[in-house]
C-alpha cells in the first residue's frame, strides 16, 4: 500500500468539465488511479458518469480540466489514440460490428486471435466459432467477446462500463475473477457498476460523482455501501422501500399450465394473482425470454395453456395481449421507445394507439394524464424534447410511465432496473408496489437476486425451462434464490 502511494498515479484526471449547450454535464470531475488498483466509478443517473467515461476514453473532448496518463498530459482525441496510449475501454453497448464475423472484427481492431481465444476460454465460453456473425450471437456472449478483445490488447488501464449488467450469474463470477487477477498482475481498472456486491468483491477504492463533480474517493471496506449511497444521493436519501409482504389472496389473473415454447422453455406452470408482485428468477437463457414473449404475444407457445381472467388465450399478435390486459415493458429500452420523439409523445402513445381513437387527439385529457405520470415518476424533464437524450434510468421510467398513464391490468416487467442507479430503482419498486395495490398483477423478472425481497411478494425460480421452486419473499434471501436458480435443492 505504501508503495502505491509513493508512486505517481497511472491515470490522473482533474477538474474535468463539459457542457452540452445549456446543460452542464460535468463541472469538476476527477479520478486518480494507481498501478494495480481497481477503482469503482459511481454515481446516480445523470451524475455525469457517461460523459466522464467518454472523455476518459477519447470519445469526447473536455471543455476544461486535465487528464494525465502515465504522467504525460493526455487528452485523447479519439478512441484510437486512447488505445495507443494504453487505455482500452469496454463500453456498456457492444462495440463489435454486427454484420462482420468474429475473425473480421479481430482483424479490424488488430487483435491477436491467439490471445483473444485464450481470454474467451478463460472467461468461460468454449464453443465460439470465429466465423460466427456477430449480429447473431446473444448479448451476453458479445459482452464477453468485447472484454476478451480488450484483454488481448494487454492494456495498462482497462475501463469496464457496466460490464456485468447483461451477464448471467456464472459468467459474472468468471469476469470478476479475471479482472481481479489482472489487477494483481499490475494492470489498473476503472470499474463501473451499480452492483455493490461486485464492487465490494473486487474494487480497492470508489470514486463517487454527483451532479457533475467528484464528491468522494473512498477506500472499500465492509459497510462502506451506506456511505457511498449517502454521497451519491447527497443526503436526500429516500428510505429503502420497506415492502410489507401481504397475503396474496386476490383472484387469479393469469394462469399458466405446462407452457412450452422454443427450445428452452420446456414446462412452466404458475398463477399470477391480482394485487401481487410475482418475481421471476432465472440464470441467463433458462427460458425466461420465451416466457415473456409468449405472455406478450410476440411468440406462440408450442403447447400448454395460458388463461387470463378465466378465459383461455392464444395470442398471435401483441395487440391481442394488450387487449387482454397484458402489457410488456421489454428489457431493451430501445425496443419500446421512439427514441427521437418527445417524452410526452412516448407516454401518450399507448393512449392513442387504438383504432377508435382515430381522429383528433384529445389534447387536454392527454396532457393531464401525461403530466400526472411524469410527476409520479419524477422524470428528469430537462431533455423533454427527445427521449434519446435522457439518461438510461430516465428512459426506463418513461417505458413504465406510459403504462401508468394508460392504466394497466397485468404488467410484465423484464429486468426493468438493469443498469440504473439506486435512487431510480427505489422509485421503480415503489411504483410497482403502488400499481399492485391498485389491483394490477405484476410479473417482475430480475437479474438481481436482492430485488426479490425489495419489490416482490413471491418469486418463481426457473431452471432449465421448468419451475423449480416458488419462494415467499420473506424467505427469499440471496443464498436461497441462488441455490434454487442453479437447480440445487434448498437446504432443509
Amino acid at each position, binding site marked *: 500500500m505504501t508503495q502505491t502511494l509513493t508512486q505517481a498515479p497511472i491515470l490522473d484526471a482533474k477538474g474535468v468539465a463539459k457542457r452540452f449547450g445549456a446543460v452542464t454535464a460535468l463541472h469538476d470531475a476527477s479520478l486518480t488511479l494507481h498501478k494495480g488498483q481497481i477503482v469503482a466509478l459511481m454515481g446516480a443517473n445523470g451524475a455525469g458518469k457517461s460523459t466522464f467515461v467518454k472523455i476518459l476514453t477519447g470519445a469526447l473532448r473536455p471543455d476544461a480540466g486535465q487528464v494525465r496518463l502515465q504522467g504525460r498530459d493526455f487528452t485523447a482525441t479519439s478512441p484510437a489514440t486512447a488505445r495507443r496510449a494504453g487505455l482500452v475501454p469496454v463500453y456498456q*453497448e457492444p462495440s463489435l460490428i454486427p454484420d*462482420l464475423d468474429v475473425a473480421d472484427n479481430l482483424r479490424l481492431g488488430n487483435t491477436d486471435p491467439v490471445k483473444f481465444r485464450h481470454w474467451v476460454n478463460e472467461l468461460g465460453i468454449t464453443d465460439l466459432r470465429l466465423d460466427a456473425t456477430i449480429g447473431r450471437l446473444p448479448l451476453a456472449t458479445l459482452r464477453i467477446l468485447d472484454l476478451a478483445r480488450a484483454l488481448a490488447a494487454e492494456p495498462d488501464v482497462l475501463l469496464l462500463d457496466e460490464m456485468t449488467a447483461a451477464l448471467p450469474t456464472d459468467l459474472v463470477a468468471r469476469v470478476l475473477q479475471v479482472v481481479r487477477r489482472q489487477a494483481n498482475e499490475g494492470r489498473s481498472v476503472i470499474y463501473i457498476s451499480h452492483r455493490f456486491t461486485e464492487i465490494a468483491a473486487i474494487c480497492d477504492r470508489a470514486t463517487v460523482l454527483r451532479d457533475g463533480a467528484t464528491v468522494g474517493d473512498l477506500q472499500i471496506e465492509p459497510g462502506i455501501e451506506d456511505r457511498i449511497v449517502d454521497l451519491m444521493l447527497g443526503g436526500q436519501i429516500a428510505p429503502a422501500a420497506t415492502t410489507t409482504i401481504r397475503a396474496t389472496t386476490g383472484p387469479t389473473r393469469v394462469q399458466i399450465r405446462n407452457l412450452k415454447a422454443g427450445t428452452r422453455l420446456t414446462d412452466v406452470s404458475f398463477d399470477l394473482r391480482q394485487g401481487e408482485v410475482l418475481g421471476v428468477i432465472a440464470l441467463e437463457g433458462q427460458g425466461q425470454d420465451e416466457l415473456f414473449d409468449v405472455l406478450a404475444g410476440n411468440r406462440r407457445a408450442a403447447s400448454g395453456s395460458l388463461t387470463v381472467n378465466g378465459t383461455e388465450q392464444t395470442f398471435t399478435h401483441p395487440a391481442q395481449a394488450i387487449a387482454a390486459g397484458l402489457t410488456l415493458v421489454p428489457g431493451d429500452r430501445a425496443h419500446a421507445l421512439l427514441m427521437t420523439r418527445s417524452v410526452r409523445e412516448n407516454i401518450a402513445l399507448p393512449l392513442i394507439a387504438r383504432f377508435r381513437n382515430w381522429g383528433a387527439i384529445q389534447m387536454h385529457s392527454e396532457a393531464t394524464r401525461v403530466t400526472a405520470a411524469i410527476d409520479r415518476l419524477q422524470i428528469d424533464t430537462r431533455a423533454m424534447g427527445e427521449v434519446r437524450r435522457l439518461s438510461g434510468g430516465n428512459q426506463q421510467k418513461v417505458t413504465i410511465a406510459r403504462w401508468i398513464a394508460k392504466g394497466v391490468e397485468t404488467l410484465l416487467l423484464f429486468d426493468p432496473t438493469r443498469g440504473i442507479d439506486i435512487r431510480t430503482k427505489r422509485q421503480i419498486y415503489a411504483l410497482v408496489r403502488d400499481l399492485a395495490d391498485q389491483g394490477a398483477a405484476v410479473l417482475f423478472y430480475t437479474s438481481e437476486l436482492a430485488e426479490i425481497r425489495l419489490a416482490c411478494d413471491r418469486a418463481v425460480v426457473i431452471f432449465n425451462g421448468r419451475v423449480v421452486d416458488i419462494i415467499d419473499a420473506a424467505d427469499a434471501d440471496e443464498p436461497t434464490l441462488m441455490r434454487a436458480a442453479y437447480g440445487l435443492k434448498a437446504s432443509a
Partner: protein
Amino acid sequence: MIRFLTQNSWTLGLASLLILLLITTKLIQPDFGVSGLDSLARAALPYALATLGMAVVVIAGGIDLSLAAMMAVTSVTAATLMQGTTDGGAALVVLAVLALGATLGAINGTLIVTTRVPDIVVTLAMLYVWQGTALLILNAPGGSAAPWLRALIVGGVTLPYIPPALTEWLPKGVVFLLLTLAIIWLPIRRSKLGLMFYAIGSDPLAAFRSGIAVGPTKIAAYATAGLFAALGGLAVTMSTGIGEPIPGPYLLTSVAAVVLGGVTLGGGRGGLIGPILAVFILRLVRMDLTLLNVDPNITTIIEGAIMVVVVMFGAVFATRGRS
C-alpha cells in the same frame, strides 16, 4: 461448401436467374448469339460501373446521387482532352480522368464528413454542381476517343495462339468489367480498408469505438465510388467515341441494381458481384420485353414489379434460413 452456398445464396440465385433469362432470350429470339451478347455487354457496361460505385458507397452506409453527373464530367473531360492526341497521350488522359473521378468522389465524401449534412442532401446538391460543370466543359456531345480504347470493349475476346472460336463468344465488355473488379475492388476487399467500409456501414458507432477513423474511411468509400464513376464515364466515351455532357439514366438503375443485387440500403451487407448480375438481369429483361414488342411504358412497370417481388422473396428466404 454448404457454408459457402448459404453465404452466397443470393448471388447464386441471381446467377441462375440470369442464365434463365439468357435461355429465354434465345428462345424468343433464335438469332440471339455472339453479337447480341456483345451489344448487351457494351450497353450494360456504363450501368454496371455506376452500380459498382453505388454499391461501394451503400456498403459503407452512404448513398451518392451525383454518380451519373460525375460520369458526365469525366466523360466530357476525357473526350475533350483526347481530341487530336496520340495513342500515348490518350493513355495519360485515361489516368488523369481516373484521378479526376476519385477526386470528385473525395470532394463529395469530404463535404459529407465535414459539414455533417446528410449524404443524400450533399450528393443531391453535388449532382447539380457536376451537371453544370460537365456542360461548362462541353456544351454539346462532342470530342473524340482514341480508337484503341474503343477496341478494348467492342467485340469478342481474341487471344494469340488460342483458336478464336473458343474465346470469341466472350464479350470484351464483360472482361473489362471483371478486370476492373479484380484491379480495384479485390485489393480493397482483401485489405483492412474493405473491412472498414463494411464496419462503418454496419454500425458507425461501434466502428468508432473499435478505433476506426470513421470520417476518412467514408471519404475513401466516396473516392472509390468516384473512381468507378470515372470508369463509367470513360466507358461511355469509349463505346460512343464522344463525350456526353448530359447524364444518362444511370443513377436510378444503379440504386435498383444495388438493391436487387443484395446490398442492404442501410449498409454493411452485400458484395459487388450480386449488383453486377442484377444490372445484366435488368438490361436483359428490358431487351426481352422490347423483342416481344411490349409497350415501353409497360416495360418500366414490369421492371419495377420484378424488383419488389425479387427483394420480397429474398426477405422471406432470409427469415426462413434464420429460424
